C-alpha cells in the first residue's frame, strides 16, 4: 500500500453522558481538529452541552445502540473521505492525550484495527470488568486464533474502507466484539496499543451496559461466531495476507503437509496440531470431535486443518475398537472377544466407559506417534525444499547422484537417534513397530520412490501403481529392519542375531589354497551383521570402503564403542588402494569388496547384462584375482527371520592369470557375478538395497565419466 497520510476522524459515540462528554471533546480538540459526536438518542441533555465547540454532531432520533452509532460514524467518515476513525468513549474513561499514540500507529499499520489496551493493574478497575475482559478475550482467540489483550476496550482505530467491507449485524455493545472477529477472519491485523485509563469511583460512574440483555446478546453472538468459525468454508479476505487455502486431505499427506508448510508453519507446530487432533479424535466425544478439535486448536492457535486432518486417522472402527479393547483389558484383565448384541448393545454404556478409559491410554500414544511421523515428514520435505534452493548453480544431476548414495538422504541424525532410542527402550519389537508406520510414509515420499524405482521396475516389470507401492513399502521395510538389526547388534550385543553360514566347507577349502580370498559382496541383506559369521576364519578381513566424515548411520561396532574389527582400505588412497589390496592377498588374507557398483575414483567398470538391461560393474576385483591367483566368492547375506540371517556362498569365480590389459577380458567373470546377483534377487526380491539407477548408462566408457558417487556401506 502506498504511503498515504492517514486522514483521521475522531468519533465519540454519546449516550447519556452529558456530564462528561464536553470535557472529552474539549481535550480531544486540543490535539485533533476533526471530531464527530454521534448522539445515540440521549435522553439527557445529550449533545446540546457541546454548544460552541467546533465539532460535527449527528443524532439518532431514538436510542439504537453503540454499534449503530459506530455504523453511522463510519458512513459519515466514508462520505467525508476519512481513511480512519478513532473512537473514544464519552464517559471520560479514555484519555484523549493518547490520541497521538494511535495516530503514530495508524501511520505504521494503515490496514490494522488498533485496540487500546487498558492497564488493568490499576486499582480502580472493577473486578467484573476484569473477568469480562478475560472472557471475551478467550472467545476471540477460540473463534479466530488471534489474540488481543483488551477486546472490550472502546478506544479503537478502524480503517474505514475495510470495516465498511465487513458484514456486521450487531447494533449494541456486541458490535465491538463482532467487528473484531469478522475483521480477523477477513485477514485484518488486530493490534494492541497501551493506553492509560481512568475509571471513576463507582458512584460517579454511569454505564449503559445492561447486565442481562447485553450479556444475553453477547452469548448469542459468541455462539453464532463460534459456529461460523468452525464451518469449513473460507472467510472472505479483505486484506491480502499471502495465505493460500488449499485442499488438505489425509489421503494425500505429503501434498497436504507441503501446503501447510508453505503457510509459515514449523514442523513442530504441525506435529503439535496433529497430536492434538489425534488425541482428541481418540476420545469418545460422540459426534462432536470436529467441533472440539477446532475449538481446542483455535484456542492454542494450532493449525486447524492439520488437527482435523490428523484426527481422521481415528475414524471408526479401528481406533475406537482399539480403545475399547484396551479399556476392557484395563478393567477386566482380558480382551473383549465376544462381539454380540449383548456386549455391544445392552452393555453399550460399559463399552463407552471402556472407550474413554482406553482412549486416555491409546490417545497420547497414538498422538505421540503421529506427531513424530508428521515431524519426520515435515522436516524431510523442508529439507528437500531448502536443499533444492541451496543447490543453485551446481549441476543438479551430479549432486543428485552424489546424494543418492549418502545416508543423509535416507534420514537425518535425529531420525536415526529415535530408532536407537526405541531399541534401547523396547528392543527389536518396539523399533520394528515404529518402523511399520514410519516406512509407510517414507514409501510415499517422491525421493524414496525415485530411488526404489529403477530396481523395482526391472525386478517387477509388470507391476501396476498399487503393486509398485506395496513393493516399495516392503523394500523400505526390509531396509529399515536391517538398519534396526544392525544397531541392535551394536547396542544389545551380537548374540541377538543368529547368522547361518552356508558354504563353510567350500570357504575353508579355498582358504587352504593360501592365495588369499576375495569376497565380492553386494548391497543386499545386511552384510555387516552377517560378517560376524566369518569369525571362524581367524584371518584379517580387509574392506575396501570409504568413510565420509559426515556419515550418520553407524557401523554396528561403533554403537558398542568397539574398535573396528576390520582393516579398512580407502579407495581414495594411493593408486586407489591397489597396492594395498595386492599386498593383502599376497599375505593370504581376506579382501572384501562391493561388486555391484562403482566405488570412489574407480573408473574400471564393464557393461554386463543384469535383469534385462545393461549395468556397469567394477572389474578391479577380477583383475586382482587374475594377478594374484586368489579365488573370488560371491558371498551374499539375507535376512531369514526376525532374528536370523544367512550368509551364503553363492558361487566361486576363478579368474585365470595373464588375461592381459584391457577391460573386456573380464566381462565373462563379472557377468558370472551379475547372474549370481540376479538369482539372489529372484529369491529375495526386497533385500536389494542398491538405491542407484544402475541401468542408466550401458557403456563402461560413459559410466567412467559419470561416476562422482561416493560409496555407502550398508
Amino acid at each position, binding site marked *: 500500500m502506498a504511503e498515504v497520510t492517514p486522514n483521521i476522524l475522531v468519533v465519540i459515540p454519546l449516550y447519556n453522558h452529558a456530564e462528561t462528554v464536553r470535557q472529552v471533546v474539549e481535550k480531544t480538540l486540543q490535539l485533533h481538529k476533526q471530531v464527530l459526536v454521534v448522539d445515540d438518542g440521549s435522553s439527557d441533555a445529550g449533545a446540546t452541552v457541546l454548544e460552541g465547540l467546533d465539532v460535527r454532531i449527528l443524532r439518532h432520533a431514538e436510542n439504537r445502540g453503540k454499534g449503530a452509532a459506530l455504523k453511522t460514524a463510519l458512513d459519515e467518515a466514508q462520505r467525508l473521505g476519512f481513511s480512519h476513525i478513532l473512537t473514544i468513549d464519552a464517559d471520560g474513561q479514555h484519555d484523549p492525550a493518547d490520541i497521538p499514540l494511535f495516530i503514530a500507529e495508524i501511520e505504521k499499520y494503515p490496514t490494522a484495527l488498533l485496540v487500546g489496551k487498558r492497564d488493568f493493574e490499576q486499582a480502580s478497575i472493577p473486578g467484573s470488568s476484569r473477568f469480562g475482559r478475560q472472557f471475551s478475550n478467550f472467545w476471540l482467540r477460540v473463534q479466530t486464533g488471534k489474540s488481543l489483550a483488551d477486546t472490550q476496550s472502546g478506544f479503537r482505530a478502524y480503517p474505514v474502507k475495510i470495516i465498511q467491507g465487513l458484514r456486521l449485524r450487531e447494533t449494541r455493545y456486541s458490535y465491538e466484539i463482532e467487528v473484531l472477529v469478522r475483521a480477523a477472519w477477513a485477514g485484518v491485523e488486530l493490534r494492541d496499543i497501551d493506553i492509560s485509563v481512568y475509571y471513576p469511583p463507582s458512584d460517579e460512574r454511569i454505564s449503559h451496559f445492561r447486565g442481562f440483555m447485553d450479556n444475553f446478546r453477547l452469548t448469542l453472538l459468541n455462539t453464532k461466531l463460534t459456529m461460523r468459525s468452525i464451518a469449513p468454508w473460507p472467510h472472505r479476505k479483505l486484506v491480502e495476507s499471502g495465505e493460500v487455502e488449499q485442499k488438505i486431505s489425509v489421503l494425500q499427506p505429503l501434498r497436504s503437509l507441503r501446503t501447510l508448510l508453505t503457510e509459515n508453519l514449523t514442523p513442530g507446530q504441525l506435529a503439535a496440531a496433529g497430536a492434538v487432533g489425534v488425541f482428541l479424535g481418540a476420545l469418545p466425544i460422540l459426534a462432536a470431535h470436529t467441533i472440539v478439535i477446532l475449538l481446542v486448536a483455535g484456542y492454542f492457535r494450532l493449525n486447524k486443518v492439520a488437527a482435523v486432518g490428523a484426527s481422521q486417522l481415528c475414524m471408526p472402527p479401528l481406533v475406537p475398537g482399539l480403545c475399547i479393547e484396551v479399556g476392557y483389558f484395563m478393567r477386566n484383565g482380558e480382551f473383549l472377544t465376544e462381539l454380540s448384541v449383548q456386549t455391544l448393545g445392552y452393555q453399550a454404556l460399559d463399552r463407552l466407559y471402556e472407550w474413554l478409559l482406553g482412549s486416555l491410554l491409546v490417545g497420547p500414544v497414538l498422538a505421540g506417534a503421529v506427531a513424530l511421523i508428521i515431524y519426520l515428514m515435515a522436516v524431510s520435505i523442508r529439507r528437500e525444499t531448502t536443499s533444492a534452493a541451496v543447490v543453485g548453480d551446481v549441476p543438479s544431476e551430479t549432486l543428485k547422484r552424489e546424494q543418492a548414495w549418502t545416508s543423509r538422504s535416507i534420514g537425518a541424525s535425529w531420525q536415526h537417534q529415535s530408532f536407537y532410542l526405541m531399541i534401547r527402550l523396547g528392543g527389536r519389537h518396539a523399533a520394528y513397530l515404529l518402523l511399520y508406520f514410519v516406512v509407510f510414509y517414507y514409501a510415499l515420499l517422491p525421493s524414496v520412490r525415485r530411488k526404489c524405482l529403477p530396481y523395482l521396475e526391472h525386478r517387477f516389470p509388470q507391476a501396476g501403481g498399487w503393486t509398485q507401492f506395496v513393493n516399495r513399502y516392503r523394500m523400505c521395510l526390509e531396509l529399515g529392519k536391517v538398519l534396526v538389526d544392525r544397531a541392535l547388534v551394536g547396542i544389545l550385543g551380537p548374540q541377538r542375531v543368529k547368522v547361518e553360514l552356508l558354504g563353510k566347507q567350500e570357504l575353508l577349502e579355498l582358504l587352504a589354497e593360501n592365495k588369499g580370498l576375495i569376497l565380492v559382496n553386494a548391497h543386499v541383506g545386511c552384510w555387516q551383521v552377517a560378517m560376524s559369521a566369518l569369525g571362524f576364519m581367524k584371518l584379517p578381513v580387509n574392506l575396501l570402503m570409504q568413510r565420509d566424515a559426515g556419515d550418520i548411520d553407524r557401523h554396528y561396532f561403533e554403537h558398542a564403542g568397539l574398535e573396528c574389527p576390520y582393516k579398512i582400505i580407502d579407495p581414495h588412497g*594411493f593408486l*586407489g588402494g591397489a597396492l594395498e589390496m595386492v599386498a593383502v592377498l599376497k599375505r593370504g588374507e581376506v579382501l572384501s569388496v562391493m561388486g555391484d557398483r562403482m566405488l570412489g575414483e574407480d573408473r*574400471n567398470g564393464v557393461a554386463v547384462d543384469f535383469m534385462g538391461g545393461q549395468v556397469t560393474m567394477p572389474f578391479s576385483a577380477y583383475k586382482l584375482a587374475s594377478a594374484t591367483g586368489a579365488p573370488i566368492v560371491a558371498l551374499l547375506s539375507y535376512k531369514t527371520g526376525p532374528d536370523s540371517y544367512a550368509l551364503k556362498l553363492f558361487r566361486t569365480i576363478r579368474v585365470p592369470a595373464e588375461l592381459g590389459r584391457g577391460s573386456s577380458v573380464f566381462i565373462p567373470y563379472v557377468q558370472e557375478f551379475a547372474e549370481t546377483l540376479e538369482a539372489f534377487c529372484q529369491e529375495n526380491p526386497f533385500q536389494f538395497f542398491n538405491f542407484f539407477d544402475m541401468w542408466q548408462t550401458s557403456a563402461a566408457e560413459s559410466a567412467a565419466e559419470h561416476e562422482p558417487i561416493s560409496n555407502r556401506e550398508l
Partner: protein
Amino acid sequence: MGVKEKLKQVLIEDLNLEDVEPDEIDDDMALFGEGLGLDSLDAVELVVIIQKHFGVEIKDMEEGRPAFQTINTLAKYIEERLA
C-alpha cells in the same frame, strides 16, 4: 641391460603401452596419473610384472608406496632386494 632399461622394456611390453619407446620414458617421470599415465589396475599388473621378471615380491604397502613413483624409485627398490 640395467634394471632401468629392463623395467622400461617390460613395462611397454606387458602393459601394452602403444606408441611408447623405451627412451621416451624419463627416469624421473611419474608412473601414475600425469606422466606415463598408468592407473591403479596397471599398478596391480606392475606388481605381477616385477615378480615375474625380477623375482621381487612386493608384499608391504609401506615399502611399495615410495617405490611406485618413478622408474628411478622402482629400480632402486628392485636393486636393493636383488642385492
